[in-house]
């Protein structure tokens, strides 16, 4: 119950890398850090995934997509949803953060810096359009459960920020 490390069979990594978040199609579930373990036990792949947000409607789809990707690679699988340890944005890999930025979603800052932004409105989140640091928080809640809404004061573009958990 208390494991914080990932246990993933290296053979399965290339398969799981090909499964993407349905709402952020550039972000692989591996880079998102939701796969906590994937091991072949008695010929069946047992996968443990953890939700990003409790109400994230993408989790059911992700589970189905994993099953399908494994099936395509001739593996039977069982997907379990685990809650502990709770997912944190710190588990998004550097490659995942880069993919987010390129997609137009500001990547989560380190947890401490994020608190500054969301709780005091300090301008640290960079605009994904023009890279300006002159941005303001419009709302702590954005287009999906995992995002906050920002606005750039220089180029005037609104943009999403993947908020820290």
């Amino acid at each position, binding site marked *: *119950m208390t494991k914080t490390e990932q246990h993933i069979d290296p053979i399965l990594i290339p398969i799981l890398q090909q499964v993407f978040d349905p709402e952020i199609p550039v972000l692989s579930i591996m880079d998102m850090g939701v796969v906590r373990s994937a091991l072949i036990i008695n010929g069946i792949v047992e996968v443990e995934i953890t*939700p990003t*947000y*409790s*109400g*994230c*409607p993408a989790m059911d789809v992700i589970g189905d997509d994993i099953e399908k990707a494994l099936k395509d690679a001739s593996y039977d699988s069982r997907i379990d949803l685990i*809650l*502990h*340890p*709770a*997912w944190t944005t710190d588990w998004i890999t550097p490659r995942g953060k880069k993919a987010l930025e390129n997609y137009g979603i500001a990547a989560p800052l380190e947890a401490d810096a994020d608190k500054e932004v*969301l*709780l005091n409105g300090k301008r640290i989140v960079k605009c994904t359009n023009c890279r300006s640091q002159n941005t303001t928080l*419009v*709302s*702590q*809640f*954005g*287009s999906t*459960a995992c995002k906050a*809404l920002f606005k750039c004061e220089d180029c005037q573009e609104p943009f999403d920020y993947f*908020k820290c*958990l």
Partner: protein
Amino acid sequence: MKENLYNYILGIADNSLILGQRIGELCGHGPSLETDIACTNISLDLLGQVRSYFQYAAKIAGDERTEDDIAMLRKERDYKNVLLVEQPNSNFAYTIGRQFLFDVYHLAFLAELQKSTDLILSAIANKCIKEVSYHERFSSDWVKRLGDGTAESKEKMQEAINDLWTYTDELFYQTKADKAMVLESVGVDVTKLKGDYYKRIKGLLEEATLKIPESKWFQKGGKEGVHTEHLGYLLSDLQYMQRTYPNMEW
């Protein structure tokens, strides 16, 4: 079946279910796009949290019951939520006031539930608290904005707080299941949260330049299944699909 644990979980989850349904009513009706989206996000968080609780409860029940049955197929008297969360969205100040009075409690409650000896409950709490801290920030910011805003927004915010105040004491009422779970170190002793709760609420109300209600008369009953008239209407909305098309699935 562990009757007390089952009832204890429902007591926690029903608050989030009913509040999630209530604040979800603002979908498409929020006073601005940002608040509309915020309210529906909060609703989604709460309903997501409810799923974790009900999935666990269904497992404890150990029969045919599913999380959906627990959410959709109980009668009014079987819901164990506090009266506060079922109060209607009379205007935006009520929506915010209700959310605020619950969020401050919810946050303190989850902080304690993380220490539960029940590992599943502590894992759920650990997950939920991250989301609820955003809710509390949102609702307390709005209480301040409305309270310290125009003469009209102040009047409406004050009226909402005054009216909802009578439902706050019930947050600290303990049912038989609550008491049994506290004894087993599974449940949170809510009576110990009361002092800090009112202190924090009063501090925030002062910041919002609002008056602290003086009424000492408090309404209770929800936790024992005795609800205000508003719950029935809410449930008829919530349960409509399952009652009309039994056993339907998406």
